[in-house]
Protein backbone atom coordinates (compact mmCIF):
# COMPACT_ATOMS: atom_id res chain seq x y z
CA UNK A 1 0.00 0.00 0.00
CA UNK A 2 0.97 3.60 -0.45
CA UNK A 3 1.74 5.64 2.65
CA UNK A 4 0.10 8.95 3.46
CA UNK A 5 1.00 11.75 1.08
CA UNK A 6 3.40 14.10 2.81
CA UNK A 7 2.79 17.80 3.02
CA UNK A 8 5.23 19.85 0.96
CA UNK A 9 7.83 21.59 3.13
CA UNK A 10 9.99 24.55 2.20
CA UNK A 11 13.27 23.73 0.48
CA UNK A 12 15.20 26.88 1.29
CA UNK A 13 17.33 28.59 -1.31
CA UNK A 14 20.38 30.71 -0.64
CA UNK A 15 18.00 33.68 -0.48
CA UNK A 16 15.43 32.21 1.88
CA UNK A 17 17.56 29.99 4.16
CA UNK A 18 18.05 32.68 6.86
CA UNK A 19 14.27 33.08 7.17
CA UNK A 20 13.76 29.36 7.80
CA UNK A 21 16.85 29.00 10.02
CA UNK A 22 15.50 31.81 12.20
CA UNK A 23 12.07 30.20 12.37
CA UNK A 24 13.67 27.00 13.61
CA UNK A 25 15.26 29.02 16.42
CA UNK A 26 11.86 30.60 17.20
CA UNK A 27 12.54 33.97 15.60
CA UNK A 28 10.79 35.87 12.84
CA UNK A 29 13.49 37.55 10.80
CA UNK A 30 13.43 39.45 7.54
CA UNK A 31 15.91 41.45 5.53
CA UNK A 32 16.16 45.16 6.27
CA UNK A 33 17.63 47.02 3.32
CA UNK A 34 21.04 48.53 3.94
CA UNK A 35 20.26 51.20 1.36
CA UNK A 36 16.82 52.54 2.26
CA UNK A 37 15.73 50.64 5.39
CA UNK A 38 12.79 48.94 3.65
CA UNK A 39 11.84 45.63 5.28
CA UNK A 40 12.18 43.24 2.38
CA UNK A 41 9.95 40.25 1.76
CA UNK A 42 10.09 37.80 0.05
CA UNK A 43 13.84 37.44 0.60
CA UNK A 44 15.80 38.68 -2.35
CA UNK A 45 19.25 39.50 -3.61
CA UNK A 46 18.18 43.11 -4.00
CA UNK A 47 15.71 45.66 -2.68
CA UNK A 48 12.57 46.18 -4.82
CA UNK A 49 12.49 49.85 -3.75
CA UNK A 50 16.13 50.98 -4.25
CA UNK A 51 17.89 47.94 -5.82
CA UNK A 52 20.54 47.94 -3.11
CA UNK A 53 22.09 44.54 -2.47
CA UNK A 54 22.97 45.46 1.12
CA UNK A 55 20.73 43.98 3.81
CA UNK A 56 20.81 42.64 7.34
CA UNK A 57 18.50 40.01 8.77
CA UNK A 58 16.67 41.70 11.65
CA UNK A 59 14.27 40.25 14.22
CA UNK A 60 10.68 41.46 13.85
CA UNK A 61 8.12 41.95 16.61
CA UNK A 62 6.08 38.97 15.46
CA UNK A 63 2.95 41.09 15.76
CA UNK A 64 0.38 42.09 13.18
CA UNK A 65 -3.27 41.98 12.21
CA UNK A 66 -5.39 39.81 9.93
CA UNK A 67 -5.50 41.47 6.50
CA UNK A 68 -7.56 38.73 4.89
CA UNK A 69 -8.65 35.18 5.63
CA UNK A 70 -10.26 32.32 3.76
CA UNK A 71 -11.39 28.84 4.72
CA UNK A 72 -10.31 26.12 2.33
CA UNK A 73 -13.11 23.57 2.00
CA UNK A 74 -11.84 21.99 -1.20
CA UNK A 75 -8.11 21.43 -0.88
CA UNK A 76 -5.99 21.67 -4.02
CA UNK A 77 -3.32 19.28 -2.72
CA UNK A 78 -4.13 15.77 -1.47
CA UNK A 79 -1.89 16.07 1.60
CA UNK A 80 -4.13 18.82 2.95
CA UNK A 81 -7.44 17.06 2.31
CA UNK A 82 -7.73 15.65 5.85
CA UNK A 83 -7.35 19.16 7.31
CA UNK A 84 -10.26 20.72 5.40
CA UNK A 85 -11.94 22.97 6.29
CA UNK A 86 -8.81 24.90 7.30
CA UNK A 87 -7.94 28.59 7.22
CA UNK A 88 -5.32 30.50 5.25
CA UNK A 89 -4.65 33.99 6.54
CA UNK A 90 -2.69 36.96 5.25
CA UNK A 91 -1.10 38.86 8.11
CA UNK A 92 -0.28 42.54 7.90
CA UNK A 93 2.91 42.74 9.95
CA UNK A 94 3.51 45.79 12.13
CA UNK A 95 6.79 46.30 10.24
CA UNK A 96 5.09 46.57 6.82
CA UNK A 97 5.20 43.34 4.81
CA UNK A 98 2.34 40.85 4.53
CA UNK A 99 2.86 37.16 5.16
CA UNK A 100 0.70 34.10 4.47
CA UNK A 101 0.08 31.45 7.07
CA UNK A 102 -2.50 29.69 9.21
CA UNK A 103 -4.20 30.96 12.35
CA UNK A 104 -4.24 28.36 15.10
CA UNK A 105 -6.23 28.06 18.34
CA UNK A 106 -9.24 30.10 17.23
CA UNK A 107 -12.35 28.69 15.52
CA UNK A 108 -12.50 29.74 11.86
CA UNK A 109 -15.80 31.58 12.32
CA UNK A 110 -14.21 33.90 14.90
CA UNK A 111 -11.48 35.13 12.57
CA UNK A 112 -12.01 38.66 11.29
CA UNK A 113 -10.15 41.35 9.38
CA UNK A 114 -8.15 43.55 11.75
CA UNK A 115 -7.82 40.87 14.46
CA UNK A 116 -4.51 41.30 16.33
CA UNK A 117 -2.24 38.28 16.10
CA UNK A 118 1.20 37.13 17.16
CA UNK A 119 3.57 34.66 15.63
CA UNK A 120 4.01 31.05 16.75
CA UNK A 121 6.54 28.58 15.45
CA UNK A 122 5.39 25.08 14.62
CA UNK A 123 8.24 22.58 14.38
CA UNK A 124 7.01 20.13 11.77
CA UNK A 125 10.27 18.24 11.21
CA UNK A 126 13.80 18.10 12.58
CA UNK A 127 14.91 20.95 10.37
CA UNK A 128 11.74 22.92 9.61
CA UNK A 129 9.51 25.16 11.69
CA UNK A 130 6.54 26.78 9.94
CA UNK A 131 5.45 30.30 10.85
CA UNK A 132 1.86 30.31 12.08
CA UNK A 133 -0.28 32.81 14.02
CA UNK A 134 -2.44 32.99 17.12
CA UNK A 135 -4.86 35.55 18.43
CA UNK A 136 -2.94 38.19 20.44
Amino acid at each position, binding site marked *: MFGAIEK*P*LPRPSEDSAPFWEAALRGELRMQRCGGCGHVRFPPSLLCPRCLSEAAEWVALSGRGTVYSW*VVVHQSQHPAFNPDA*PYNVVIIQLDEGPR*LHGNLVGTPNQEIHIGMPVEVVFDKVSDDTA*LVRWKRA
Partner: protein
Amino acid sequence: MSSVSGRYAIVGVGTSRFGKLQGVSTMGFTLEASKRAIEDAGIGRDAIDGVLVMMPAIMGEQHGWAARVAGYLGLEPTFSATMDLGGATACGSVQTAMAAIDAGYCTAVLCCFATQNWPQGVAMQLFGSEFQVPYGDVGALTLMGHIKRRQMHEHGYTEAQYGQIAVTWRAHARDNPEAQMQKPMTLEQYLASRWVVEPLRLFDCCPNTDGGGACIVTSLERARDLKQKPARILGAGQTHATEIIHPNGRDPERLSGSRAADQVYAMAGVQPADVDCAQLYDAFTPRVMHDLVAYGFCAPGEAGAFVEAGQVTHGGSLPCNTAGGLISEGHLSGFGHIREAVRQVRGTAAARQVPDCELCLVTGYGGAPHEAPPTVSYSALLLGRD
Protein backbone atom coordinates in the same frame (compact mmCIF):
# COMPACT_ATOMS: atom_id res chain seq x y z
CA MET B 1 1.43 54.31 -30.24
CA SER B 2 -1.76 55.58 -31.84
CA SER B 3 -0.24 54.91 -35.25
CA VAL B 4 -1.20 51.22 -35.18
CA SER B 5 -4.76 51.83 -33.99
CA GLY B 6 -7.21 50.46 -36.53
CA ARG B 7 -4.53 49.40 -38.99
CA TYR B 8 -4.70 45.72 -38.05
CA ALA B 9 -7.61 43.33 -37.69
CA ILE B 10 -8.60 39.95 -36.39
CA VAL B 11 -9.74 38.08 -39.48
CA GLY B 12 -10.45 34.59 -38.20
CA VAL B 13 -11.37 32.93 -34.91
CA GLY B 14 -11.75 29.31 -33.93
CA THR B 15 -11.90 26.92 -31.04
CA SER B 16 -11.37 23.19 -30.78
CA ARG B 17 -13.90 20.90 -29.16
CA PHE B 18 -13.89 21.87 -25.51
CA GLY B 19 -15.18 20.60 -22.19
CA LYS B 20 -14.08 17.68 -20.06
CA LEU B 21 -12.16 15.89 -22.79
CA GLN B 22 -9.25 14.20 -21.11
CA GLY B 23 -7.10 12.14 -23.40
CA VAL B 24 -6.88 14.62 -26.27
CA SER B 25 -3.35 16.00 -26.54
CA THR B 26 -2.51 19.67 -26.05
CA MET B 27 -1.11 19.69 -29.58
CA GLY B 28 -4.28 18.11 -30.93
CA PHE B 29 -6.45 20.83 -29.45
CA THR B 30 -4.06 23.54 -30.68
CA LEU B 31 -4.17 22.25 -34.23
CA GLU B 32 -7.94 21.82 -34.24
CA ALA B 33 -8.51 25.41 -33.06
CA SER B 34 -5.90 26.79 -35.46
CA LYS B 35 -7.39 25.00 -38.45
CA ARG B 36 -10.83 26.40 -37.66
CA ALA B 37 -9.45 29.93 -37.33
CA ILE B 38 -7.71 29.58 -40.70
CA GLU B 39 -10.93 28.30 -42.28
CA ASP B 40 -12.96 31.08 -40.65
CA ALA B 41 -10.61 33.67 -42.14
CA GLY B 42 -10.51 32.06 -45.54
CA ILE B 43 -6.81 32.87 -45.65
CA GLY B 44 -4.30 30.73 -47.52
CA ARG B 45 -2.13 28.72 -45.17
CA ASP B 46 0.97 29.89 -47.01
CA ALA B 47 0.05 33.47 -46.13
CA ILE B 48 0.57 32.84 -42.42
CA ASP B 49 4.15 33.77 -41.60
CA GLY B 50 3.90 34.43 -37.85
CA VAL B 51 2.98 32.03 -35.04
CA LEU B 52 2.45 32.96 -31.37
CA VAL B 53 1.51 30.20 -28.96
CA MET B 54 0.60 30.33 -25.31
CA MET B 55 2.77 28.19 -23.04
CA PRO B 56 0.86 24.96 -22.38
CA ALA B 57 -0.40 24.61 -18.83
CA ILE B 58 1.24 21.23 -18.44
CA MET B 59 5.00 21.60 -18.40
CA GLY B 60 7.25 19.14 -20.13
CA GLU B 61 5.95 19.86 -23.59
CA GLN B 62 7.03 23.45 -23.73
CA HIS B 63 10.39 23.36 -25.49
CA GLY B 64 10.12 25.08 -28.83
CA TRP B 65 6.37 24.88 -28.53
CA ALA B 66 5.53 27.63 -31.03
CA ALA B 67 7.88 26.25 -33.67
CA ARG B 68 6.42 22.78 -33.13
CA VAL B 69 2.89 24.06 -33.63
CA ALA B 70 4.07 25.71 -36.85
CA GLY B 71 5.69 22.48 -37.94
CA TYR B 72 2.54 20.45 -37.34
CA LEU B 73 0.55 22.99 -39.36
CA GLY B 74 3.05 22.81 -42.20
CA LEU B 75 4.03 26.44 -41.78
CA GLU B 76 7.45 27.99 -42.09
CA PRO B 77 7.00 31.29 -40.25
CA THR B 78 9.49 34.13 -40.20
CA PHE B 79 8.45 35.09 -36.67
CA SER B 80 7.35 33.02 -33.69
CA ALA B 81 7.28 33.06 -29.90
CA THR B 82 5.95 30.97 -27.05
CA MET B 83 4.16 33.41 -24.76
CA ASP B 84 3.60 33.15 -21.03
CA LEU B 85 1.18 35.70 -19.58
CA GLY B 86 -1.22 33.06 -18.27
CA GLY B 87 -4.80 34.12 -18.89
CA ALA B 88 -3.55 37.46 -20.18
CA THR B 89 -1.88 35.77 -23.14
CA ALA B 90 -4.82 35.79 -25.54
CA CYS B 91 -5.12 39.60 -25.71
CA GLY B 92 -1.38 40.00 -25.21
CA SER B 93 -0.55 37.80 -28.18
CA VAL B 94 -2.78 39.86 -30.46
CA GLN B 95 -0.90 42.98 -29.33
CA THR B 96 2.45 41.26 -30.01
CA ALA B 97 1.19 40.14 -33.42
CA MET B 98 0.39 43.74 -34.37
CA ALA B 99 3.82 44.88 -33.25
CA ALA B 100 5.55 42.13 -35.22
CA ILE B 101 3.63 42.95 -38.40
CA ASP B 102 4.27 46.64 -37.90
CA ALA B 103 7.99 45.94 -37.55
CA GLY B 104 7.95 44.08 -40.84
CA TYR B 105 8.86 40.70 -39.35
CA CYS B 106 5.79 39.00 -40.80
CA THR B 107 2.43 39.82 -42.38
CA ALA B 108 -0.21 37.47 -40.91
CA VAL B 109 0.02 35.92 -37.46
CA LEU B 110 -1.69 32.90 -35.96
CA CYS B 111 -2.21 33.29 -32.19
CA CYS B 112 -3.23 30.08 -30.47
CA PHE B 113 -3.38 28.09 -27.27
CA ALA B 114 -4.61 24.85 -25.77
CA THR B 115 -4.75 23.23 -22.40
CA GLN B 116 -5.24 19.68 -21.20
CA ASN B 117 -5.91 19.61 -17.49
CA TRP B 118 -4.81 16.05 -16.91
CA PRO B 119 -2.77 15.16 -14.95
CA GLN B 120 -3.96 18.00 -12.80
CA GLY B 121 -1.82 16.93 -9.88
CA VAL B 122 1.33 17.64 -11.85
CA ALA B 123 0.22 21.17 -12.62
CA MET B 124 -0.74 21.83 -9.04
CA GLN B 125 2.71 20.87 -7.86
CA LEU B 126 4.04 23.73 -9.92
CA PHE B 127 1.85 26.38 -8.34
CA GLY B 128 2.94 28.27 -5.31
CA SER B 129 5.92 29.37 -3.32
CA GLU B 130 7.68 28.08 -0.21
CA PHE B 131 5.90 30.85 1.70
CA GLN B 132 2.42 29.63 0.72
CA VAL B 133 2.27 25.96 -0.23
CA PRO B 134 3.37 24.60 3.20
CA TYR B 135 0.27 26.30 4.67
CA GLY B 136 -2.09 24.54 2.29
CA ASP B 137 -2.32 27.67 0.14
CA VAL B 138 -2.20 26.07 -3.30
CA GLY B 139 -3.39 27.37 -6.67
CA ALA B 140 -5.57 30.30 -7.67
CA LEU B 141 -8.60 29.59 -5.48
CA THR B 142 -7.16 30.98 -2.25
CA LEU B 143 -6.05 34.19 -4.00
CA MET B 144 -9.53 34.67 -5.41
CA GLY B 145 -11.07 33.95 -2.03
CA HIS B 146 -8.88 36.66 -0.51
CA ILE B 147 -9.79 39.12 -3.26
CA LYS B 148 -13.50 38.48 -2.69
CA ARG B 149 -13.01 38.85 1.08
CA ARG B 150 -11.27 42.21 0.67
CA GLN B 151 -13.80 43.48 -1.88
CA MET B 152 -16.69 42.62 0.45
CA HIS B 153 -14.86 44.20 3.39
CA GLU B 154 -13.92 47.41 1.59
CA HIS B 155 -16.99 47.98 -0.58
CA GLY B 156 -19.82 46.10 1.11
CA TYR B 157 -20.46 43.95 -1.98
CA THR B 158 -23.05 41.29 -1.14
CA GLU B 159 -23.20 37.58 -1.84
CA ALA B 160 -26.25 38.23 -4.01
CA GLN B 161 -24.28 40.67 -6.17
CA TYR B 162 -21.63 38.06 -6.93
CA GLY B 163 -24.45 35.61 -7.52
CA GLN B 164 -26.01 37.99 -10.03
CA ILE B 165 -22.86 37.75 -12.15
CA ALA B 166 -22.95 33.95 -12.18
CA VAL B 167 -26.69 33.85 -12.88
CA THR B 168 -26.42 36.40 -15.72
CA TRP B 169 -23.58 34.55 -17.42
CA ARG B 170 -25.52 31.30 -17.16
CA ALA B 171 -28.50 32.93 -18.83
CA HIS B 172 -26.20 34.19 -21.61
CA ALA B 173 -24.76 30.69 -22.03
CA ARG B 174 -28.25 29.38 -22.74
CA ASP B 175 -28.05 31.24 -26.07
CA ASN B 176 -24.67 29.67 -26.84
CA PRO B 177 -25.06 26.05 -27.95
CA GLU B 178 -21.34 25.40 -27.39
CA ALA B 179 -21.31 26.53 -23.74
CA GLN B 180 -20.31 23.91 -21.19
CA MET B 181 -22.78 25.00 -18.52
CA GLN B 182 -26.30 25.01 -19.91
CA LYS B 183 -28.55 24.29 -16.94
CA PRO B 184 -30.53 27.33 -15.85
CA MET B 185 -29.35 28.74 -12.52
CA THR B 186 -31.22 30.90 -10.02
CA LEU B 187 -29.80 33.21 -7.40
CA GLU B 188 -31.12 30.81 -4.75
CA GLN B 189 -29.11 27.97 -6.31
CA TYR B 190 -26.03 30.18 -6.33
CA LEU B 191 -26.52 31.07 -2.67
CA ALA B 192 -26.98 27.40 -1.79
CA SER B 193 -23.86 26.28 -3.67
CA ARG B 194 -21.04 24.92 -1.54
CA TRP B 195 -17.99 26.77 -0.39
CA VAL B 196 -14.83 26.02 -2.31
CA VAL B 197 -12.55 28.45 -0.53
CA GLU B 198 -14.87 30.49 1.70
CA PRO B 199 -16.01 33.19 0.82
CA LEU B 200 -15.71 31.75 -2.70
CA ARG B 201 -18.62 29.51 -3.71
CA LEU B 202 -18.63 26.78 -6.34
CA PHE B 203 -20.59 29.00 -8.74
CA ASP B 204 -18.09 31.85 -8.34
CA CYS B 205 -15.66 29.61 -10.27
CA CYS B 206 -15.30 28.54 -13.88
CA PRO B 207 -15.19 24.84 -14.77
CA ASN B 208 -11.94 23.19 -15.78
CA THR B 209 -11.92 23.11 -19.55
CA ASP B 210 -9.85 20.99 -21.87
CA GLY B 211 -9.59 22.60 -25.30
CA GLY B 212 -7.99 25.30 -27.38
CA GLY B 213 -8.58 28.56 -29.19
CA ALA B 214 -7.00 30.58 -31.98
CA CYS B 215 -7.25 33.79 -33.94
CA ILE B 216 -5.48 35.34 -36.92
CA VAL B 217 -4.19 38.91 -37.12
CA THR B 218 -3.23 40.72 -40.30
CA SER B 219 -3.32 44.20 -41.82
CA LEU B 220 -6.67 45.89 -42.35
CA GLU B 221 -5.84 46.21 -46.02
CA ARG B 222 -5.44 42.48 -46.44
CA ALA B 223 -8.31 41.77 -44.05
CA ARG B 224 -10.73 43.53 -46.38
CA ASP B 225 -9.93 41.00 -49.13
CA LEU B 226 -10.76 38.02 -46.92
CA LYS B 227 -13.94 36.11 -46.23
CA GLN B 228 -15.27 37.82 -43.10
CA LYS B 229 -15.87 41.37 -42.03
CA PRO B 230 -12.67 42.43 -40.26
CA ALA B 231 -12.69 43.11 -36.53
CA ARG B 232 -10.43 46.16 -36.32
CA ILE B 233 -8.00 46.29 -33.41
CA LEU B 234 -8.44 49.85 -32.20
CA GLY B 235 -6.63 49.55 -28.89
CA ALA B 236 -4.38 47.24 -26.90
CA GLY B 237 -2.84 47.52 -23.44
CA GLN B 238 -1.02 45.59 -20.73
CA THR B 239 0.03 45.98 -17.11
CA HIS B 240 2.19 43.61 -15.14
CA ALA B 241 1.42 44.36 -11.53
CA THR B 242 1.29 43.09 -8.01
CA GLU B 243 -1.93 41.82 -6.51
CA ILE B 244 -3.69 42.98 -3.35
CA ILE B 245 -1.86 40.46 -1.25
CA HIS B 246 1.56 41.72 -2.27
CA PRO B 247 3.77 41.50 0.82
CA ASN B 248 4.72 45.15 0.45
CA GLY B 249 1.17 46.29 -0.06
CA ARG B 250 0.16 48.58 -2.89
CA ASP B 251 -1.47 51.93 -3.44
CA PRO B 252 -5.15 51.25 -2.76
CA GLU B 253 -6.16 54.26 -4.85
CA ARG B 254 -4.86 52.68 -8.02
CA LEU B 255 -6.35 49.34 -9.01
CA SER B 256 -4.18 46.74 -10.67
CA GLY B 257 -4.94 46.76 -14.38
CA SER B 258 -5.77 50.44 -14.60
CA ARG B 259 -2.61 51.15 -16.60
CA ALA B 260 -3.75 48.59 -19.20
CA ALA B 261 -7.09 50.41 -19.26
CA ASP B 262 -5.43 53.80 -19.73
CA GLN B 263 -3.39 52.40 -22.63
CA VAL B 264 -6.22 50.66 -24.42
CA TYR B 265 -8.52 53.69 -24.31
CA ALA B 266 -5.80 56.19 -25.22
CA MET B 267 -4.71 54.13 -28.21
CA ALA B 268 -8.28 53.78 -29.47
CA GLY B 269 -9.17 57.38 -28.64
CA VAL B 270 -12.38 56.36 -26.89
CA GLN B 271 -13.93 56.48 -23.41
CA PRO B 272 -15.47 53.67 -21.37
CA ALA B 273 -18.91 55.14 -22.14
CA ASP B 274 -18.32 54.46 -25.85
CA VAL B 275 -17.97 50.70 -25.31
CA ASP B 276 -21.03 48.73 -26.46
CA CYS B 277 -20.22 45.42 -24.85
CA ALA B 278 -17.39 43.78 -22.91
CA GLN B 279 -15.91 40.34 -22.48
CA LEU B 280 -14.26 40.48 -19.04
CA TYR B 281 -11.81 37.84 -17.83
CA ASP B 282 -13.96 35.99 -15.35
CA ALA B 283 -12.34 32.78 -14.20
CA PHE B 284 -13.89 33.86 -10.86
CA THR B 285 -16.68 36.39 -10.15
CA PRO B 286 -14.47 38.76 -8.08
CA ARG B 287 -12.49 39.38 -11.29
CA VAL B 288 -15.57 40.93 -12.87
CA MET B 289 -16.09 43.32 -9.94
CA HIS B 290 -12.45 44.32 -10.29
CA ASP B 291 -12.49 44.91 -14.05
CA LEU B 292 -15.74 46.90 -14.01
CA VAL B 293 -13.90 49.48 -11.88
CA ALA B 294 -10.39 49.15 -13.36
CA TYR B 295 -11.73 49.66 -16.90
CA GLY B 296 -13.77 52.67 -15.89
CA PHE B 297 -17.36 51.42 -16.09
CA CYS B 298 -18.07 52.08 -12.40
CA ALA B 299 -16.72 54.32 -9.70
CA PRO B 300 -14.65 52.50 -7.07
CA GLY B 301 -16.93 50.50 -4.83
CA GLU B 302 -19.94 50.69 -7.13
CA ALA B 303 -19.50 47.51 -9.18
CA GLY B 304 -21.84 45.52 -6.94
CA ALA B 305 -24.73 47.96 -7.41
CA PHE B 306 -23.97 48.15 -11.16
CA VAL B 307 -24.32 44.39 -11.49
CA GLU B 308 -27.38 44.28 -9.24
CA ALA B 309 -29.10 46.88 -11.42
CA GLY B 310 -28.79 44.53 -14.40
CA GLN B 311 -26.33 46.71 -16.32
CA VAL B 312 -24.23 43.73 -17.45
CA THR B 313 -27.14 41.84 -18.99
CA HIS B 314 -28.54 42.18 -22.51
CA GLY B 315 -30.52 45.40 -22.41
CA GLY B 316 -28.28 46.86 -19.71
CA SER B 317 -25.83 49.68 -20.33
CA LEU B 318 -22.92 47.25 -20.79
CA PRO B 319 -23.82 43.69 -21.81
CA CYS B 320 -20.90 41.54 -20.65
CA ASN B 321 -19.67 38.03 -21.33
CA THR B 322 -22.41 37.51 -23.85
CA ALA B 323 -21.42 33.90 -24.63
CA GLY B 324 -21.46 32.87 -20.97
CA GLY B 325 -17.92 33.83 -20.01
CA LEU B 326 -15.29 31.52 -18.62
CA ILE B 327 -17.76 30.68 -15.86
CA SER B 328 -20.42 29.20 -18.12
CA GLU B 329 -19.04 28.92 -21.66
CA GLY B 330 -15.74 27.47 -20.43
CA HIS B 331 -12.18 28.45 -19.63
CA LEU B 332 -10.58 28.89 -23.02
CA SER B 333 -8.01 31.12 -21.40
CA GLY B 334 -9.49 34.24 -22.96
CA PHE B 335 -9.61 32.99 -26.56
CA GLY B 336 -13.35 32.37 -26.13
CA HIS B 337 -13.71 36.04 -25.22
CA ILE B 338 -11.83 37.11 -28.36
CA ARG B 339 -14.00 34.84 -30.49
CA GLU B 340 -17.18 36.28 -28.99
CA ALA B 341 -15.96 39.88 -29.33
CA VAL B 342 -15.12 39.29 -33.00
CA ARG B 343 -18.58 37.84 -33.59
CA GLN B 344 -20.19 40.81 -31.84
CA VAL B 345 -18.45 43.40 -34.01
CA ARG B 346 -19.03 41.31 -37.14
CA GLY B 347 -22.70 41.21 -36.22
CA THR B 348 -22.79 37.40 -36.33
CA ALA B 349 -23.50 36.58 -32.66
CA ALA B 350 -27.00 35.29 -33.50
CA ALA B 351 -29.33 35.23 -30.48
CA ARG B 352 -26.59 36.84 -28.38
CA GLN B 353 -26.04 39.79 -30.68
CA VAL B 354 -25.81 43.16 -28.96
CA PRO B 355 -27.74 45.50 -31.29
CA ASP B 356 -25.55 47.85 -33.33
CA CYS B 357 -22.36 46.72 -31.61
CA GLU B 358 -19.51 48.92 -32.81
CA LEU B 359 -17.00 48.57 -29.99
CA CYS B 360 -16.23 45.61 -27.75
CA LEU B 361 -13.68 45.49 -24.93
CA VAL B 362 -11.88 42.22 -24.16
CA THR B 363 -9.79 41.78 -21.02
CA GLY B 364 -7.26 39.18 -19.93
CA TYR B 365 -5.75 38.30 -16.56
CA GLY B 366 -3.24 35.73 -15.42
CA GLY B 367 0.29 34.96 -14.40
CA ALA B 368 1.82 33.95 -11.10
CA PRO B 369 -0.62 35.01 -8.38
CA HIS B 370 0.45 32.18 -6.11
CA GLU B 371 4.11 33.04 -6.11
CA ALA B 372 5.86 35.32 -3.64
CA PRO B 373 5.39 38.13 -4.43
CA PRO B 374 2.07 37.45 -6.14
CA THR B 375 2.14 39.13 -9.54
CA VAL B 376 -0.39 39.15 -12.33
CA SER B 377 -0.57 40.33 -15.91
CA TYR B 378 -3.48 42.36 -17.23
CA SER B 379 -4.15 42.72 -20.94
CA ALA B 380 -6.92 44.29 -22.98
CA LEU B 381 -8.09 44.83 -26.55
CA LEU B 382 -10.68 47.13 -28.03
CA LEU B 383 -12.19 45.64 -31.16
CA GLY B 384 -14.23 47.74 -33.53
CA ARG B 385 -16.62 47.18 -36.42
CA ASP B 386 -15.13 47.94 -39.84
